[in-house]
């Protein structure tokens, strides 16, 4: 990708990240308006923040932290209660949740690795003393590395399967307990666009960069798409432009999801594990 294009990407990325940050700040400001047990209702936000930080530190260094972590993992992330209630719902939710989380982490690491450690200066150490030239960073920087490619495509596929079940429950089976409104549909459509768009972007990258078949094959869906799209009589330069446009659109969709997160239902992905863990600690009578 050209230097100018990357500048456009980073400006847009930072602007959207700032918006996300602003939303989080607004939510924090609202949250600090709420009552803190043990403090007068009209206590200042600053005072509340100080007390909350104090209680958090106390909680971290108490036995309650074990309960917190166990509940966070088992109830907040593995969703064992949902597993006991309904295996299909658990499967649909877990596949979407974990794939989104893992793909998000992978993309972020790859993005950072590509921007800051590529090319990697020889003999340079990371802040924690690990040589930057190591197989893991090499693998993450290289999107055609078999492991990176399989992880990206595999989790994308798992997410699509999960999304299929989510959509089926909501629009096919129409579970009576569900209340589907416009924002629910919008979020699901955005998620589907992100995953499907990822495959298209990958196909365009194969065409733009002329990735050889023996490497591209580790991203089989993208590779298959590139074979079909490659039938179009377009030059490599054109594919480069097309790739950038689609990459940018893909990135904008992800950013839109991020932007929508704090003020929408989507925020439960962050908040519900926290709530379930905090409530578990309180139930056990520990500091929370």
């Amino acid at each position: 990708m050209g230097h100018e294009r990357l500048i456009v990407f980073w400006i847009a990325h930072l602007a959207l990240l700032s918006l996300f940050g602003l939303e989080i700040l607004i939510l924090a400001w609202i949250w600090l308006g709420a009552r803190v047990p043990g403090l007068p209702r009209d206590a200042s936000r600053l005072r509340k923040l100080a007390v909350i930080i104090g209680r958090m530190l106390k909680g971290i260094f108490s036995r309650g932290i074990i309960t917190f972590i166990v509940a966070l993992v088992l109830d907040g992330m593995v969703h064992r209660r949902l597993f006991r209630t309904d295996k299909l719902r658990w499967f649909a939710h877990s596949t979407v949740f974990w794939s989104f989380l893992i793909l998000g982490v992978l993309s972020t690491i790859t993005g950072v690795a590509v921007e800051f450690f590529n090319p990697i200066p020889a003999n340079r150490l990371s802040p924690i003393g690990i040589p930057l030239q190591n197989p893991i960073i090499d693998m993450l920087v290289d999107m055609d590395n078999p492991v990176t490619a399989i992880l990206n495509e595999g989790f994308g596929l798992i997410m699509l399967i999960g999304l299929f079940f989510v959509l089926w429950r909501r629009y096919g089976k129409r579970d009576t307990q569900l209340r589907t409104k416009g924002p629910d549909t919008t979020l699901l459509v955005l998620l589907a666009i992100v995953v499907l768009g990822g495959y298209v972007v990958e196909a365009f990258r194969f065409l733009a960069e002329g990735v050889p078949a023996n490497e591209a094959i580790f991203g089989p869906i993208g590779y298959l798409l590139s074979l079909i799209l490659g039938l179009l009589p377009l030059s490599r330069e054109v594919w480069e432009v097309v790739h950038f446009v689609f990459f940018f659109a893909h990135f904008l969709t992800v950013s839109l999801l991020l932007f929508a997160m704090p003020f929408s239902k989507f925020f439960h992905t962050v908040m519900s594990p926290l709530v379930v863990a905090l409530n578990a600690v309180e139930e056990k009578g520990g500091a929370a």
Partner: protein
Amino acid sequence: MSEEAKRDQGTKLSIGHFTGRQTLEMLGCTRCGECIKWCPTYAEAERDEITPLDKITTMRSFLLGQYTGPLGRLFGHRKPDDASLARYATGTYDCTLCGRCHVVCPVQIRTRELWIAMREQLVELNRHPELMNRLRETVNASHNISGDPNERRTGWSANLAQVPASLDRQKGAEVVYYLGCVAAFYPMVYSIPQAFVQIMERVGVRWTTLGGEEWCCGFPLTIAGMGADADELARHNVAAVRELGAKTVVMACPSCYHTWKHEYPHIVGDLGFQVVHASEFLRDLVTAGRIKLGAYPDPITYHDPCDLGRTSGIYDAPREIIQAIPGIQFTEMKDSREYSLCCGGGGDVEMADAALSQAVGKRRILQAQDTGAKTIVTACQQCKRTLLGTARREKVRIKTIDVSELVLEAMGS
């Protein structure tokens, strides 16, 4: 004041009614709708505003709409207006506060506390049902929910073969029996205090009541969203017990029990005496061998009162008493323990929507009937009153008794 400002005054929410935890819980709701499947009032009325999910998403949207301006509007959040607040208020008060939604919530949102905080908010905005104002006036003026002169709290004892000498404020009693407004003023359930004091007399417990100095515990006001008015009641009741020097306060009403045990310490600090529910008290007497139980003829089932089970965590004490009856035929209902169905008498719904309360009760009576039981045993005077009324209305031939009545009957003469 401009028209817009005037309108805003009646719809402006204060996030200070909610704790930080409750705010996080509203943000953490996954909107999975599991609560809808289990909501007893929604099952009968099928109005979406009743559902826990709707209440949470509506309040979250109100708050985001109010505090985030155009950015919030972009996501469809609107600050409340008259119509949306009226809908929300109806849903919030058409809830029995049974707490079943908490049990099934994958995020374990503490819904009952949240609904009470929402009601407090509505009271501040003067959007609560008018009947709640009357309840407040009655309790403040008469110190009970019925509006009868409070001195008549021991009226139920008139039908006893012999009125116990220690009935009214006997100093030196080890146990204070706190009746609660329902047992004291509703003849339909007079049999509960009558049974309970007869047991204490026969076992030799030194007991008394607060007589006319017993005030409403404050629970009906707290759950109406008028908790601030309950503080004075709490202080008075605790002082009255302290004056008698009793070591234990026992009550057959789970709502009174919960209030004394879990709310009063927040208001008055350490009580200085223990608070036990009648079922625990009787169970201990049975376990200690002070009560000998004989047979009970009918097959029975047990109804878990919401405030005893889900709210206070007492499921086993009443069952241990039942199981101690030789040869008892006991069958659990389809929904029992933490999944127990509400009798319809909770959450002040009876005042807000009597028909809805009755519909919820009917479902429970039918569940009891399905077990083949001839007697429903419960451990709550309000549940007994509601179930008894429902059974009569529905012409279901099933007897409803409190656990203390069961014990007295099994003790024989």
